[in-house]
């Protein structure tokens, strides 16, 4: 009898040697602070993805969410915490490039794969072994905005407003400038601010004498809304442009009438949902919130789906094997498009340009790489 039990138990153990009942996944996001909207939107997307695919290899993927308060140091601490305390097999996050880099220093040293849903600065994955992303990068996004300004808006002069505290903003401004000047445009003023600044009137006043055709703010939604408002208050009539950091409902709420006609490039629109899973996601999102899904949520879902796919391909929850599969990912059908990793761990995908019209985000065009 005992022998039989022993035999049985050894059989049970050997049947599925490496597969646990659940695996923990760290999610490090800005749920409070300056870019709380990004964290919230991304988290919503990840949760919908989890509802669509709760189990991988028969195991429950348990999400451990930690708020980083929109702060670089908190982000590194949060990553440290999920790796050490929760023993996660992978980390999803962050939205902001500066914070993704803070997390990646932990991911690299602990050899835990990290997938950033929507950090677009090239440095986030450059030279990193364990860091991946679900989105395109800023050299491409800078081109998209600059070409849109040159060709669609016929702009000849531009002023840049850069958030010096955000690697995303600094990078995007540089890439915009390169393409815009190569295309025959001229950047007449480069103004700077720092995350959290609320008063932009002194900077914008400088533009009053020679107003540019376009005013490009490469920072995040809160500042983009305030800049638009204060620019209009000062009587500046330039068209205002931004990057994917502008896309949050807060842009509309905080900016009000001042953001009418604001253009920005971003990752996803329900009109651009081409994959089957993308349409399923749009349906699930609409059923839940009765409104159009945003790009950050879609990318959050993609980060989750990429991880699930890599685990399934690896048939293992070992971080190292998951990493290898992420690196090999080719033609994976995700929510925001088809993801193939390039040699620098970037997803090569098309961009969408949207515009604010009557207090809503309206699809303008899709730009392919």
């Amino acid at each position, binding site marked *: 009898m005992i022998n039989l039990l022993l035999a049985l138990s050894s059989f049970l153990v050997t049947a599925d040697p490496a597969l646990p009942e659940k695996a923990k996944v760290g999610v490090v996001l*800005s*749920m*409070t*602070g*300056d870019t*709380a*909207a990004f*964290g*919230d939107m991304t988290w919503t997307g990840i949760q919908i993805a989890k509802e669509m695919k709760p189990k991988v290899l028969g195991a429950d993927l348990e999400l451990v969410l930690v*708020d980083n308060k929109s702060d670089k140091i908190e982000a590194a601490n949060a990553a440290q915490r999920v790796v050490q305390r929760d023993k996660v097999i992978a980390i999803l996050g962050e939205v902001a490039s500066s914070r993704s880099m803070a997390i990646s220093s932990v991911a690299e040293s602990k050899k835990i794969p990290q997938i950033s849903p929507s950090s677009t600065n090239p440095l986030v994955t450059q030279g990193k072994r364990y860091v991946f992303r679900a989105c395109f990068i800023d050299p491409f996004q800078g081109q998209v905005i600059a070409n849109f300004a040159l060709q669609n808006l016929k702009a000849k002069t531009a002023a840049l407003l*850069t*958030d*010096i*505290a955000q690697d995303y903003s600094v990078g995007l401004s540089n890439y915009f400038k390169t393409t815009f000047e190569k295309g025959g445009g001229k950047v007449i*003023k*480069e*103004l*700077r*601010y*720092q995350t*959290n*600044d*609320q*008063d932009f*009137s*002194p*900077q914008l*006043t*400088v533009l*009053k*004498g020679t107003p540019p055709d376009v005013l490009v703010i490469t920072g995040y939604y*809160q500042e983009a*809304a*305030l800049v638009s*408002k204060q620019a209009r*208050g*000062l*009587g500046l009539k330039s068209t205002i442009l931004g990057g994917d950091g502008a896309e949050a409902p*807060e842009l509309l*709420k*905080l900016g*009000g009438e001042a953001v009418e006609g604001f253009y920005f490039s971003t990752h996803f629109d329900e009109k651009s949902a081409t994959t089957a899973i993308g349409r399923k996601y749009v349906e699930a999102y609409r059923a839940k919130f009765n409104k159009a899904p945003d790009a950050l949520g879609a990318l959050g879902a993609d980060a989750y789906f990429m991880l699930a796919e890599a685990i399934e391909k690896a048939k293992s929850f070992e971080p190292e094997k998951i990493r290898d599969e992420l690196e090999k990912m080719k033609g994976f059908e995700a929510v925001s498009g088809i993801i193939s990793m390039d040699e620098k761990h970037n997803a090569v995908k098309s961009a969408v340009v949207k515009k604010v019209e009557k207090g809503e985000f309206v699809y303008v065009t899709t730009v392919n790489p």
Partner: protein
Amino acid sequence: MIVELLLQQLVNLLSLGSLYALIAIGYTLVYGVLRLINFAHGDVMMVGAYIATFALTRLPWPAAFGVAVCGTALLGVAIERAAYRPLRTAPRLSLLITAIGASLFLENIGIVVFGGRPLAFPAIGLFDRVLHIGGISLPLLSVWIPAGTAVVLAVTFWIIYRTRTGMAMRAISRDRETAQLMGVNVNRVITLTFALGSALAAVGGIMWSIKFTSITPLMGVMPGIKAFVAAVLGGIGSVPGAALGGLVLGGLEVLFVAFLPELSGYRDALAFFILIGILLIRPRGIMGEDLPE
């Protein structure tokens, strides 16, 4: 053209500077009576802004502002009861620590109750309009804020120098024990000081929100620090000093950004630079009293 730009910057300077002044007046008032650096002042301001935001959806703006000012004054009294009064005789350092605790408490309660994402302050037509005079754009708010600050300053002066409570405040500030022996009800006066200081914070929070629209649980942190710098700059404890310090700080920031645009991302650093400078050169500030030995 140059003249127009300078005049425009002057408008910017006045509206930002008087906003700092407004917040610094409340800050310095509490310090003057209690010798307490009230680090929670910015967070009290945040609560005022939230109350106003919610009240505005139900009430016309004058009533909503009244509700916000009264509600915030009550909050100030509650904080004084809960956090500061038990430590009335404790060393100054304990008071400083409990002030930081109160500040963190309000911020985190704010996050739990209101969530991390910003709310938009409802637009009020009267304050939103912009006049274009020649080449200068004059947001009406740039008139209202300095005017509001002037009224607040006048009322505060009147209370401090023309009422019995004000006399008691000054007496307590000079020597609390003796004031008590002379029959001043110290607890009552301190409570009133907190109510007044918090009401001023609410006015500051409302003005701040009208100007900058975005309401978040952490919105009070930077204005709180700026008000502290303004109060130290003007001479902490001195009400006219706080008003002057606010104007000078706002002015320096605007000039810094206007004339050194390549450094414009460092305007917060400028405030700290000024703070260090004033502490090194003239610790009692521009209009401050001489520090006791």
